[in-house]
């Protein structure tokens, strides 16, 4: 029975499973609030606070909001609110690790759907050079630091209150996700102050770049996402893990060629058991594309739930060839 379930999972159509799960979670994170679902305000994914029907809020909003305080308060009662929020965020995150990005993030799903459209149109995608990749992957950490320090600067009187939630102002989720519930109000420039004008202009400029970027580059925005950076800082003790058995790897490069995030280590690193990298979105396409029995596997609490098998690989390849 156990082997039957394992075979079923290992031979399954990951792409199809992922599409339907992403669609379901997109509906949950954009319209769930209308069904009175309340998941709190510490979600480790872009359940955007600007969406009317949200069932919960992305943790980056309360984090930025709560950091707007004086250093004295930050190290007293205000710090407790931040730690409480971080605690709930960690609880959510520890279960699914970075699979929140690959399966649950509504902005990630939109990027995957734009990629699917590009494929249908037969257009080629772009990749970064290794040098570009090394530079770009640092941006998300810089953004994470900024979204913490700018609100602290607001609390200390260095920046204007109009900086508000600085990352949200430039995040494409703020401008794009509300459209799905018929709200276009985030597509505006706010002329009430110079700061607001600059921040909302930057937000709209990034939205334009995002739409083109997501069209030509898979998971374009995920390289710059500070939520992804925050995830990686907490990913070590998470229950869901991506593991590699280097002794079984032939360095064929199939895993690298299907990786939306261009993670080289997935093919090159034959030493590490825990192969999760900071840019990984845990979509597990690499596992599905691996032809080596047991070379890559997904574990939940030490139990393998999906692993690379020859049979699974052949089945998926046959299906891919059939679909052209």
């Amino acid at each position, binding site marked *: 029975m156990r082997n039957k379930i394992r075979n079923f999972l290992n031979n399954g159509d990951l792409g199809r499973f992922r599409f339907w799960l992403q669609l379901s979670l997109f509906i949950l994170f954009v319209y769930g609030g209308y069904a009175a679902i309340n998941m709190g305000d510490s979600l480790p994914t872009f359940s955007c606070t600007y969406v009317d029907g949200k069932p919960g809020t992305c943790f980056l909003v309360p984090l930025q909001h709560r950091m707007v305080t004086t250093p004295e308060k930050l190290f007293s009662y205000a710090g407790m609110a931040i730690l409480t929020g971080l605690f709930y965020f960690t609880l959510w995150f520890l279960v699914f690790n970075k699979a929140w990005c690959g399966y649950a993030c509504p902005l990630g799903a939109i990027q995957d759907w734009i990629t699917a459209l590009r494929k249908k149109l037969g257009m080629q995608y772009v990749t970064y050079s290794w040098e570009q990749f090394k530079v770009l992957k640092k941006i998300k950490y810089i953004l994470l630091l900024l979204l913490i320090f700018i609100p602290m600067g607001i609390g200390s009187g260095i920046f204007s209150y109009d900086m508000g939630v600085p990352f949200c102002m430039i995040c494409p989720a703020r401008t794009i996700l509300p459209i799905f519930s018929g709200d276009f109000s985030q*597509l505006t420039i706010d002329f009430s*102050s110079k700061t607001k004008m600059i921040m909302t*202009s930057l937000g709209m400029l990034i939205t*334009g770049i995002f739409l083109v970027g997501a069209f030509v580059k898979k998971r374009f925005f995920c390289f710059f996402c500070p939520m992804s950076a925050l995830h990686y800082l907490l990913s070590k003790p998470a229950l869901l893990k991506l593991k590699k058995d280097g002794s079984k790897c032939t360095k064929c490069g199939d895993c690298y060629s299907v990786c939306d995030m261009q993670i080289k280590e997935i093919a090159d690193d034959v030493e590490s058991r825990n192969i999760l990298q900071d840019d990984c979105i845990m979509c597990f396409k690499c596992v599905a594309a691996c032809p080596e029995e047991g070379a890559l596997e997904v574990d939940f609490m030490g139990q393998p739930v999906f692993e690379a098998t020859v049979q699974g690989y052949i089945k998926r390849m046959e299906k891919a060839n059939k679909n052209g």
Partner: protein
Amino acid sequence: MINMPIYRAVLSVLFGVLLASNLPASQTYWLSDIAPTREQAEKMRSSHGGMVIRGQQGHSKKLWLRKGDSIADSTYVEQSDLPLVLVSPEASQAELAFSNEGYADITFKMQHEGYYNLFMIDKRVEDGVLQETVLKNESLSHSCRAGHDHVKELVPPLYFEGVSFDIIRERLPRESFHLRLGSGDIITYKVMLNGKPVSGAAVTMSTQKGWAKTLKTDSDGRASFEMIRDYYPPWHEFNKRNMETFLIIAEYESDESGVYQGESYDRVHYKATSAGNYYPSARDYKSYTYGLLIGLFGLTVSIFFIYFHRKRAAKLYREKRFA
């Protein structure tokens, strides 16, 4: 009266208006969160729902008793011994009294999230008419640090059974604790008498700059006002947080007769007041046109960047020739 300075006692005897031990029907009184002096105003901070005194254990609300038929011509009452009832978001009640230190003001701590309702009720018989006056203030207590997942349940207005004549502001469909009522918003008040909506009650809205409009409530007890736009500064002086006050007065007369505190009456005149704040409309400072133009600019530049990047990458390597 015992601690009252002599000059104020003399004034109160002479004019009888600055000391409110009851509320004459001919005058309009209301509770306001706008401070009477600059020194007092400097202690107040803007928060969700109006002006507050910030504190580490939650904000406090300070309200002053004001008198006058319009906001512009109003005065601050210096003393009042009428009791107040505070209803917390959790529906617990507390009886409060004005501090009467310079002005008839009241300060209360708002430790829970939600709307605090403060009522001041005065009932007395004047010329054979029972005058029932209700002063109401609805103050919002909210800190973003407390999170937002509990907010939806706390947004609806509270109904307080201890008040026979009440005016209730109905919530807008997009209402949240972050909402600022703005010019152009349709604000609806529901007038209730003994828990039931009253048809035909006169509801007057007047603004800080003197605009006023009177409507009669419909069969559901509702009167709706479209907030006027009366803020036209030069662009560089524009402040989206520019707060102005409006006053709502609801009045209704019924033919009820009876005896109150030994005095008989053959009519009842109900009067309720409530003040609120409004801000410039977001439509005054937000532009879709510029937003879409900038978005389109980002989109176009990205397309050109990708196009030329690909064209350059596709160019064949030109062999260098040495003569």
